[in-house]
């Protein structure tokens, strides 16, 4: 099944993911974690990858960097980034891209910083891995980036260890590290999940501001539709390893076409829905990789299920409104 995503007349592309399939070779067989995922990103464009746990969002993020750990492997597909196919690049060339042109931000900032090295050491090390510069120059760049993420008195902070920072501050440090090399793309894998709500908003605002001022592309991996709707221009909704709906953020939030996306949006609390109104939920759970249903993976939970749904996997097609949807019944 070939998917022809989007029109080619759009802006010049930063990232072009085409028909990406990632599988995991386990004892029970080879299981698909991501199947035939395709999307594009222009320079400075912000995309939200949305879905429940296990939908394949993070795997897609790692696959872009060609960093799938065994027993996983990229079975097919292309990741064209600035004209280079990352899935076919040798390891040493990949290292030039990772952390230089593409940076990644993870969920838990306590875990992503090495506890035994000072923040300064880790920043300088990152820079020196990619640039041929002296410690002094690297330190100057590190200071500049720390100021960009609004860390007060960065000179003092550079000599401190990760445990001397609060959670929100740590995530700022992580973002500053991601900014060091002026990447063209940042992949943020649930960057605010480990933080409390007020800090979440701060960090998201910061990310948005930085993407705008530095003209960076952003892939925001999250299960939080509210966050995505504030930050991104495009949304791709994933379910059981496939993109089931993709389009402009406004369009998808206001007019979701896929029953799953509709369910997700109805599950959000709406203002003005009155006290005591119950939130709707989607019955059932996401299928595990071991037994993805035949046909449309969503069909056992789908309220609009029809006969063809359990036989044939729907293709991701344009349905007139500008969004792409993979559903037989739209």
């Amino acid at each position: 099944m070939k998917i022809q995503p989007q029109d080619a007349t759009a802006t010049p592309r930063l990232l072009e993911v085409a028909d990406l399939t990632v599988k995991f070779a386990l004892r029970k067989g080879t299981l698909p974690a991501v199947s035939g995922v395709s999307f594009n990103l222009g320079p400075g464009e912000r995309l939200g990858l949305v879905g429940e746990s296990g939908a394949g969002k993070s795997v897609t993020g790692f696959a872009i960097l060609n960093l799938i750990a065994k027993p996983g492997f990229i079975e097919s597909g292309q990741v064209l980034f600035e004209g280079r196919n990352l899935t076919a690049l040798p390891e040493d060339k990949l290292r030039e891209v990772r952390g230089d042109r593409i940076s990644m931000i993870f969920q838990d900032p306590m875990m992503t910083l090495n506890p035994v090295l000072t923040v300064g050491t880790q920043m300088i090390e990152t820079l020196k891995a990619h640039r041929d510069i002296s410690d002094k120059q690297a330190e100057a760049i590190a200071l500049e980036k720390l100021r960009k993420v609004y860390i007060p008195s960065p000179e003092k902070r550079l000599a401190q260890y990760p445990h001397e920072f609060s959670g929100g501050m740590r995530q700022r440090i992580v973002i500053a590290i991601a900014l060091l090399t002026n990447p063209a793309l940042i992949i943020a894998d649930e960057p605010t999940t480990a933080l409390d709500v007020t800090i979440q908003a701060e960090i998201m605002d910061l990310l948005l501001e930085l993407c705008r001022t530095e003209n960076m592309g952003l892939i925001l991996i999250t299960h939080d539709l509210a966050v995505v709707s504030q930050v991104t221009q495009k949304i791709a909704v994933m379910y059981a390893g496939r993109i089931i709906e993709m389009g402009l953020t406004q369009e998808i939030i206001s007019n979701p076409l896929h029953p799953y996306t509709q369910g997700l949006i109805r599950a959000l609390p709406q203002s003005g829905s009155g006290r005591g109104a119950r939130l709707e939920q989607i019955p059932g759970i996401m299928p595990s990789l071991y037994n993805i249903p035949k046909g449309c993976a969503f069909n056992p939970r789908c309220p609009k299920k029809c006969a063809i749904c359990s036989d044939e996997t729907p293709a991701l097609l344009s349905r007139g409104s500008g969004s792409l949807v993979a559903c037989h019944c739209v």
Partner: protein
Amino acid sequence: MALLARLRESYLLHSFLRDPVAVGSFIVVVLLVTAGFLAPVLAPMNPYDPAQIDVMDSELAPAWIDQDSSFLLGTDSQGRDILSTILYGTRVSVLIGLGAVALQAALGIGIGLISGYAGGRVDAVLMRVADVQLSFSTYMVAIFLGAIFQATFGVGRYEQIAVPFLIAVIGLAEWPQYARTVRASVLAEKKKEYVEAARVIGLPSGRIMWRHILPNTMTPVMVISTVQVANAIMSEAALSFIGLGMPVTKPSLGSLIKSGFEYIFSGAWWITLFPGVVLVLLILTINLLGDWMRDFLNPKLYKS
């Protein structure tokens, strides 16, 4: 200076000073080791220099027992001052202990790190090699190699290179202790996100291994290092006691105990007793320090 100031404010120092056993052990270890290394300055005579030894002084009792004796802890069968031989012997024992542990650590940490990080077949092969190594006891390896060495090069040559030989034997026999400990820690550390983050940053594997993972595995390494120093000193003493360690002309604590052992029943108990006491004291205090360090570095262990 900054490091010193940091130490003064640290919890490490605070916890150390509140534990009298640790402080006492530390003082004893430092005293014994400095006394050993200052032996040429402190010792009344040089037991390596035959010109200073008078056979007529042999087997004299300690000065506080025998009025005629001018030797504080008595003399051995060759007329060497026991105090001096203990000082020189401590130096030899500590040197071999530290040297052997340095070799064990270098080999074990390197192999453990590669084994844990690489995983798969490399890991399996290296760990089986470690298992094979552990299935030969230290003494067996030492006896085997020592016997071959003494037979090929003769006892005369052996005396000259006994120290590096013992370091090599004890070091080679015990490296799996380090390799296993480091490997276990690496397996736990490499799953953590900062390693993933380092890979995402584009750092090469070698750098991630040595600079990011290794420092995070140092806690257990510090604990086993203290215990291993004590073990290495004990191994050396045991080998010397059965005549495969340091020769009597360049005695370590073990060979001193052995040389006096033959005279115990003729009444010259001091030749064996004093080196024995020093050996026990040294090993006991090193182990007590190791215990304290383990308790300090592992907050999950509570002392009742």
